[in-house]
């Protein structure tokens, strides 16, 4: 076999490139030493410190709450936008809506963050809501830009879907709203699940927009980690990252298995 060594070598290099940083992070989370780069023996000390680090845990909790709520909101808004764009035919302002829906995908985050901040400040001045910056503003900001991603995913699924399914339900006596919940939603559900997961990840991951629109008491995890790292990496961040990686890996595996089963059934 002439290719015998070639493929395994590059596979190893590729996997190494992708996973070496993660592996080193996991390994050093079990490091006894306070110095991040020096191995001082195995220990779960930093996991213990993590539990007592109120600030970090608080931020993780805030982030999870924000990600869950904004992913859910984004799925609702994004699905509605996608439905309107694919099923309502031509209407006034369709091009405008298409542009608005896709804008957050191409706009630099800094600009999104800044414009939302200005909007919130102006709104507070004029309407008195949202009062100050905090979790609400972060949720609004995250739902807005995550909805764009969900809309793209839902749109492509809705376009692929056989429209005669919806017509058949109409024909059998279901009103338009009933058709949406009975037929459209279950059929596009897998796309919405992946949309939700994507939105959740994006929200959990976001630093830039959150930094603009967040306020005191609502620091998200990326914000806290970033500010901590500026003062030097502390090993409990590694421990936290390891836990998050574990959760993400589990979620991705479960989602993957579920989707694979579904596509097998669809065949």
């Amino acid at each position, binding site marked *: 076999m002439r290719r015998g060594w070639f493929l395994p070598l590059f596979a190893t290099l590729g996997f190494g490139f992708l996973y070496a940083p993660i592996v080193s992070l996991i390994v050093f989370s079990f490091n006894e030493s306070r110095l991040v780069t020096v191995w001082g023996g195995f220990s779960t000390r930093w996991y213990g410190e993590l539990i007592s680090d109120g600030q970090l845990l608080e931020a993780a909790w805030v982030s999870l709450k924000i990600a869950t709520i904004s992913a859910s909101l984004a799925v609702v808004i994004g699905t509605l936008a996608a439905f309107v764009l694919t099923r309502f035919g031509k209407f006034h302002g369709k091009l405008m809506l298409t542009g608005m829906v896709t804008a957050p995908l191409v706009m630099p985050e800094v600009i999104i963050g800044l414009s939302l901040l200005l909007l919130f400040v102006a709104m507070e001045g004029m309407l008195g809501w949202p009062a100050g910056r905090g979790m609400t503003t972060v949720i609004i900001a995250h739902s807005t830009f995550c909805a764009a991603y969900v809309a793209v995913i839902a749109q492509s699924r809705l376009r692929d879907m*056989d429209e005669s399914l919806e017509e*058949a339900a109409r*024909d059998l006596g279901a009103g338009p709203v009933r058709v949406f919940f009975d037929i459209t939603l279950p059929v596009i559900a897998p796309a919405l699940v992946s949309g939700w997961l994507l939105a959740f990840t994006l929200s959990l991951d976001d630093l830039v927009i959150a930094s603009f629109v967040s306020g005191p008491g609502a620091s998200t995890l990326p914000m806290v980690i970033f500010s901590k790292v500026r003062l030097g990496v502390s090993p409990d961040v590694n421990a936290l990252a390891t836990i998050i990686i574990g959760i993400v890996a589990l979620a991705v595996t479960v989602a993957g298995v579920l989707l694979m089963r579904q596509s097998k059934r669809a065949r």
Partner: protein
Amino acid sequence: MTSNPALAVNTRPWTDPDAKPFISIRNITKRFGDFTAVNDVSLDIYRSELFCLLGGSGCGKSTLLRMLSGFETPTSGKILIDGQDMAGVPADRRPTNMMFQSYALFPHMSVEKNVAYGLLREGKSKAEAAERAAEMLKLVKLESFARRKPHQLSGGQRQRVALARALAKQPKVLLLDEPLGALDKKLREETQFELINIQETLGVTFIVVTHDQDEAMTLATRIGVMTEGVITQVGEPREIYETPKSRFVADFIGSVNLFEGRVGPSAPDLMRVETEDLGPVSVPPVPGLTQGQTVWLAMRPERVWLTREPKEGAVNTVPGIVRDMGYVGHMSSYLVRLANGRQVRVTQANESRRDNPISWDESVHLSFEPADFRVLTQ
């Protein structure tokens, strides 16, 4: 009709000028932008008919069906079903149900849930709906598949589920869009007769859209031939085949030889038509034609006499040479070239084992019975 006492009513209501149509399509036009899909179509369909709309793709037959079901709104015109004007009635409130070409079975519901869906929307209780669904599945012989999901069924089974679902609500009219289009040939032939049986058992009015002329001929009580958004002829299958009204219909249904000619002098029982291909031809007189008018003579290939010697007593005979032949078993088809180079299609039934069948390059004579010519003016 007398042989079947159960059928007390006239089974051919379209022959009765006083019969009340069940579905009345009046001057329906549908435009998509500049394109006219259906152009001023008027059509009456009677109760318990199995009416076929036959035409090539893009002729407007599906658009017409979708206007009946309520998925498209006519640009102008009126549709009456059982005396009720359908204008403004949405698809979910019409007394019609549709069987889709793709079947459109709900993939996330079991077979019985698919069939029961319409019944539940009607406000029936779960038990009632389940009972009726079971009944429908029995009708299409799928009782044992009730709990399967659509993707676990074969194409033919899916087709039957779609039929059961569409019939479950006992619609006044069942609309079928290419109902057999997705089945293979053998299954299609079996299903055709099954479809006729079910239609006759339930007495529901069926309107079938198809591009397959054999399917239309087998299924239909009447056929409407559509082209470019217009219905060019409506009639019973035999009528459409034997007495087409235009060259398009003659050519679209079955195969045909068309000869262009001019009307010559006419006697009380025979009329002469001067044709370039066959010379002077005698045909039965057609009222309303003027001498010198251009007409087309349509002749079905199976009505041509093909003989080695001129047929005795034949009125219209021309010589020719066999250019091509194909043996199909129950019949043979020939392509015969006339003196002026025109090719004529002839088919002959192979009724007995002939020792010496006519073959390639033989000199033959074609004879035409006057009554077998159909004189067309358009």
